[in-house]
């Protein structure tokens, strides 16, 4: 089974990389880009039957730093 973990900086945490991307889009002439947030996607190839709780545990202990990041899990 596969799982996809989306990790994003929490709302309210300054995202300087997202801000730089927004500035670059504006400089390229793309108007109306109000905000950009940059995160990461982690794909996991897991033994069948791995529970969502186990994946959450992986996220809390390693894949995300919950001081600054939130995550969501998609099972495929």
């Amino acid at each position, binding site marked *: 089974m596969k799982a996809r973990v989306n990790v994003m*900086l929490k709302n309210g*945490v*300054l995202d*300087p990389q997202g801000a730089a991307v927004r500035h670059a889009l504006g400089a390229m002439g793309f108007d109306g880009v109000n905000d950009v947030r940059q995160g990461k996607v982690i794909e996991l190839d897991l033994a069948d039957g791995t529970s969502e709780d186990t994946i959450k545990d992986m996220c809390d*202990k*390693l*894949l995300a*730093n919950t*001081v*600054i990041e939130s995550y969501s899990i998609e099972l495929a």
Partner: protein
Amino acid sequence: MKAAVLVFPGSNCDRDMAVALQKSGADVTMVWHKETSLPDGLDVVGVPGGFSYGDYLRCGAIAANSPITQALKAHVERGGYAFGICNGFQVLTEAGLLPGALLRNAGLKYICKTTPLTVATTDSAYTSSYAKDQVIGVPIAHHDGNFTADQSTLDMLEAEDRVAFRYAENPNGSARDIAGILSANRRVLGMMPHPERAFEAAHGNEDGKGFFDSLVSAVVPA
């Protein structure tokens, strides 16, 4: 004083840290990250700067789950002293031994220069030989040194006098100009600037020497 310096794949300030500790009178052992225990009778553990595990995933995240880091946590739980500099600070926050996190610098650039720091408290084993509000010049060399924590954590750090150093000219966007912090028991310190790189005359300035002098005088039994 008996000290250990942890060495992760990608650590690159481990020898500088060891030299500063040795020249301050400590007996220093280098400990590889795959070890599961620290030497007996240890007083202080140093977590050095560098790029542990290539900064993969997040700076310090993999090192925070390394075997030796479990031994470090046990050492801290016993009331042992530990300090992390630069990547070592990132490791300590990722390991949950210090609050907050280090984000990408606000200006997005890697910054390598000597920067003025204000000594925010002298009530610690790392800052006692400085004067409060003394300004010292200490090199920084980091891309992810932008300290952040939620407002209540920042308020708590200030209320408990746990900010060790502040940037006099904030280079990286750190919340409330924080450059280094202390744990609740004041025995664990993390800071982004490198006092071991301003330790002796040949470094161009010796403002970081007080950090190690403080530590040795605090830890050596009276």
